[in-house]
């Protein structure tokens, strides 16, 4: 479904802030796989997702989604294949627009936007049904401005928007990191539900090792812009936090530095 070959990305080249975020990264994801991505700060997790989404173009290498080479394609054109949920709850929705308007925008992802009505009555009914799945009471607030919603509600809504048009690839960039534990669990539940229902090929970054272990069928650990550990199948099922910590130390040759990776 997704094939990244030998991707390189360096930010601020030639300055003191030079940072090689992707360092010859290669990764192949099969259709229907749910992959969790972990790694320390600056390992290149978000860079990987942004490279796939086309926020900027990679310096070298190629990215192919479902047989289509998207390496040079701008972000809005890749959106046809990709659903995204960001870490920041403010980023995935338009605060000054209504819930139903946000959904209607997402419904037209990958389609030509014409002079037809931006939202139809039939759609509204459909949205009501879909919002019920989230169990947040949003189905009764279709015309409320999204800015009035809580962070958790906004993330859940963004998740729905990302999957309204079934994407070939779902990219979740620590989408529960900014939420309180209870809300985070709820959003994660909704994620699991939606991914299962539509058999979505998913890449989920998380800082939480337990989440990384308990979700998905494959786990990759990134280190210095490359995939350092790649576990799937039986091995993934037996995986513990201790195993992961050991693997991290082996991969990086150092003790784990980030408290946030240990906790949670």
């Amino acid at each position, binding site marked *: 479904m997704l094939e990244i070959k030998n991707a390189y990305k360096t930010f601020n080249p030639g300055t003191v802030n030079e940072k090689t975020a992707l360092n010859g990264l290669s990764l192949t994801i099969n259709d229907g796989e749910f992959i969790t991505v972990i790694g320390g700060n600056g390992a290149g997790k978000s860079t990987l997702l942004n490279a796939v*989404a086309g926020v900027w173009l990679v310096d070298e290498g190629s990215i192919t989604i479902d047989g289509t080479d998207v390496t040079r394609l*701008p*972000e*809005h*054109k890749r*959106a*046809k294949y*990709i659903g*995204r949920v*960001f*870490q*920041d*709850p403010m*980023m*995935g*929705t*338009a*605060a*000054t*627009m209504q819930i139903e*308007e*946000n959904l*209607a*925008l*997402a419904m*037209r*992802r*990958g*389609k030509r*936007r*014409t*002079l*037809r*009505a*931006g*939202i139809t009555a039939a759609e509204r009914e459909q949205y009501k049904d879909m919002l019920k799945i989230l169990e947040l009471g949003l189905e009764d607030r279709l015309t409320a401005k999204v800015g009035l*919603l*809580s*962070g*958790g*509600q*906004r993330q859940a809504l963004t998740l729905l*928007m*990302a999957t309204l048009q079934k994407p070939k690839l779902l990219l979740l960039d*620590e989408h529960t*990191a*900014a*939420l*309180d534990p209870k*809300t985070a669990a709820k959003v994660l539940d909704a994620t699991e539900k939606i991914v299962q229902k539509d058999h979505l090929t998913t890449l989920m970054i998380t800082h939480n090792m337990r989440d990384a272990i308990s979700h998905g069928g494959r786990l990759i650990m990134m280190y210095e812009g490359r995939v350092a550990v790649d576990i799937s199948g039986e091995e993934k099922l037996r995986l513990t936090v201790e195993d992961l910590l050991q693997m991290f130390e082996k991969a990086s040759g150092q003790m784990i530095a980030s408290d946030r990776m240990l906790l949670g």
Partner: protein
Amino acid sequence: MTSFLNALPGAISQGLIWGIMAIGVYITYKLLDIADLTVDGSFCTGGAVCVMLIAAGWNVWPAMLVALIAGMLAGMVTGLLHTSCGIPAILAGILTQLGLWSVNLAIMGMKANQSLNVNKFDLLVSLRYLQEVGKGVRPFWQHPIFLVGLFTIAIVAILYWFFGTELGSSLRSTGANPNMSRAQGINTNFAKVLGLVISNGMVALSGALLSQYQSFADINMGRGAIVIGLAAVIIGEVVFGKLFRNFGLKLLAVSIGSIIYYVVIQAVISLSGINSNYLKLLSAVIVAIFLAVPYWKSRHFTKPMKRGGTTHA
């Protein structure tokens, strides 16, 4: 006081005409979050094109259509400078505005102003008609307030429809959240250019109406237009913000904001006898205060608000 009352219909007419420009400013400033300084130039472009074509014997309507298109082209230049050339929006607008100064002079045959003989041509609106309707020489529907009012309602209706379409929604979302818009497959660069095109089209149309109303086009007629536009947008918001939730009504509020602006200016001139030279300073101060008040309020008078958990990323 009588001089103020006598001047009132003229002030309302002018307010309505400038209101169409202000609606253009609303599109860029409020919907796209761009302060577009092109308008100072494209307003004159609309007036100059309209006057020259009517003087050349064109009918009013096609002349105004060409003025509209000329303004749209100006908006497109700014849009492309901003999106394709990566120039910050405000600077892109200033560049277009500067260039338009020469273009506008060229349109007017290298003269700083061009006048229209009201007796020779059939115009849509004119200060003369306003007086003649009052004397009963002309039917009431030729009164500028009636005609421009109708014109405004038509424009609001069209814009209301457009911003409800798929394309119009993508334009609004680009202004609201460009990251989300791109993630949803919206070409935000195209949306910005389109918004600037529509906005400057409205501005040029307004300039075309004003040049007919005052029966001349002048190279300086658009100077400070952006400030008048912002004033109208802000006044409309302050007065009707709580009342008007519907998008169409919000556009109408901008037009009414413009009328209020011109009536207040007229009142200041008539009642205080202030030298009209100071009007631009007065406008600038008023707009600065209205822009500053919400900021001061948010800094000093609101309690910190918690929304959506902590963000210790």
